[in-house]
């Protein structure tokens, strides 16, 4: 019989994986005998720890490792997540083809997009923090709980902004594509659109990068051939002096293109149109690009358009409406039903 293992909060500490100052990480075993990774922190930052782990508990992305447990003992704080046995992206990368590498990066970009909406900046995106379990699914670990922040995948600035994660993920994608840590100005892909997207995400100043990581995710998905894009989720029709535009599904490049093209076409075909009413329930995809494109479209037609209104069935979709409405610089409003929206567009309400 071996020496009994040290225990903490019901976990047996099997093997120390790393230590950084007063934060250490262990492979541990829970009471069911299942391996987990247990990270231990000093008590002094209980406020920050509780806030970060509360946000982590709410993550539902399929590629963000969920937090399994967290708590406090007499002298320590701890957080436990799944143990992934198949290894890290650093180890597995040589076995992957280019399409799979791009798909892994796209999946991680979506996990980061989800985390950013929950107020979490990862702060240490690198191949060692992208792990694979037995099902070969890529999982991003150590959200906002990482230790040392230095190395090849650390952005030029302090990683406190979501755009720092964008830089780090683009550096990881470049590393996977060219086989080494890319240098400034190096071509990263023969796919021109992907190369341009990666270079933009790697801009020295955060202000020059994409506003949201969804734009990088969309570029990676397109390059990986991961997008079903028919543009058929858009319908534009005339209703009195207004256009009624219906957008469902995801903000794919095809949907955005169809949306702006159809509206431009209808605006030139019906000179009496003075307003646009959207039934807009699209979420996800290249949401940032959709906002830019529709905001610019309203601005372009501002000489004729008097009002823009939106009906949405969720806060996420409504968030896009607020950004589109404000960017266009016209009078705008959001509604719960198309009837109330139509009344306002006719000038009868609000």
């Amino acid at each position, binding site marked *: 019989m071996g020496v009994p293992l040290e225990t903490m909060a019901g976990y047996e500490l099997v093997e120390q994986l790393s230590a950084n100052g007063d934060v250490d990480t262990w492979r541990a075993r*829970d009471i069911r005998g299942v391996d987990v990774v247990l990270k231990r922190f000093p008590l002094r930052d209980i406020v920050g720890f509780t806030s970060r782990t509360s946000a982590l508990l709410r993550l539902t992305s399929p590629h963000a490792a969920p937090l399994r447990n967290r708590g*406090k003992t007499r002298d320590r704080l701890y957080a436990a997540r799944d143990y992934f046995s198949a290894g890290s992206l650093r180890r597995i990368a040589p076995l992957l083809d280019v399409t799979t590498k791009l798909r892994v990066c796209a999946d991680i970009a979506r996990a980061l997009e989800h985390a950013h909406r929950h107020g979490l900046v990862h702060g240490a995106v690198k191949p060692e923090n992208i792990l694979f379990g037995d099902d070969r699914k890529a999982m991003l670990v150590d959200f906002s709980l990482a230790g040392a922040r230095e190395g090849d995948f650390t952005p030029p600035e302090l990683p406190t902004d979501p755009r720092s994660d964008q830089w780090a993920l683009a550096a990881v994608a470049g590393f996977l594509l060219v086989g080494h840590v890319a240098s400034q100005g190096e071509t990263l892909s023969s796919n021109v659109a992907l190369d341009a997207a990666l270079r933009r995400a790697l801009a020295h100043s955060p202000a020059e990068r994409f506003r949201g990581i969804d734009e990088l995710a969309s570029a990676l998905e397109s390059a990986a051939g991961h997008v079903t894009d028919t543009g058929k989720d858009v319908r534009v029709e005339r209703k009195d002096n207004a256009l009624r535009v219906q957008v469902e599904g995801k903000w794919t490049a095809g949907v955005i293109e169809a949306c702006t093209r159809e509206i431009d076409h209808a605006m030139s075909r019906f000179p009496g149109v003075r307003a646009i009413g959207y039934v807009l329930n699209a979420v996800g995809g290249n949401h940032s690009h959709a906002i830019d494109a529709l905001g610019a479209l309203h601005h372009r037609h501002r000489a004729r358009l008097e009002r823009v209104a939106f009906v949405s069935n969720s806060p996420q979709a409504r968030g896009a409406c607020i950004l589109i409405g404000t960017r266009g610089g016209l009078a705008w409003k959001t509604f719960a039903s198309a009837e109330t929206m139509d009344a306002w567009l006719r000038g009868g309400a609000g």
Partner: protein
Amino acid sequence: MTLGKRTAVVLLQRLTTLLWGSPPLLLPEIVQHLGAMGALGWFAKNLPRYESLMKKWGPLRTHLLCIEASLLNGCSYCIHAHAYAFQLHYFRREGRLFPIDEHGVIALREQKDDALRSIWKDALAHAGLDEESALFDRLWRLKLEGETPRDEVSSGIHHILNMFEMLNFCGMNAQTPFDHAHDGINKDETLKKRYAEARLASDNGASPST
């Protein structure tokens, strides 16, 4: 950023530090969006009315309305800042935790409107805040059903809705990282520590597998 804009940011940072202990990370984005004079004018116009609503209605009701306005608009940053302030006030007044923590409130933005409304009203009922539930219905009608303000209460709610249309735009446009509770209660470090300990002990929303 021009010198004028930088000066406006510094002035607003000083003001909010005085009020809440530290400045919101959103301020540079507000100045960028409205311009230096526009931003100072916006605060001069809106802050006194907001403070007078806070005085009249108290922090719980006021922060709830700010959360609800931001929740319907989908702005995680503003939901967090006001939900955290609300949680601290509720914890201090009631000596117990609100049924959903601030990150759980943020997660509601991923729900469809019907589900969001039902979960939120249940939480208010469990917290003994039925009167606030009725005010949420009024805010909903003003925001999404084209109702116009007809009395003093709905005109106060309308003011909050208008304020948050601009603040939520800035928060979402810049994808501003979360900061702290936008309230003087943010200065109470002991309360924040007690609240964190209570959350960890309750493990609200957690899914421990062990």
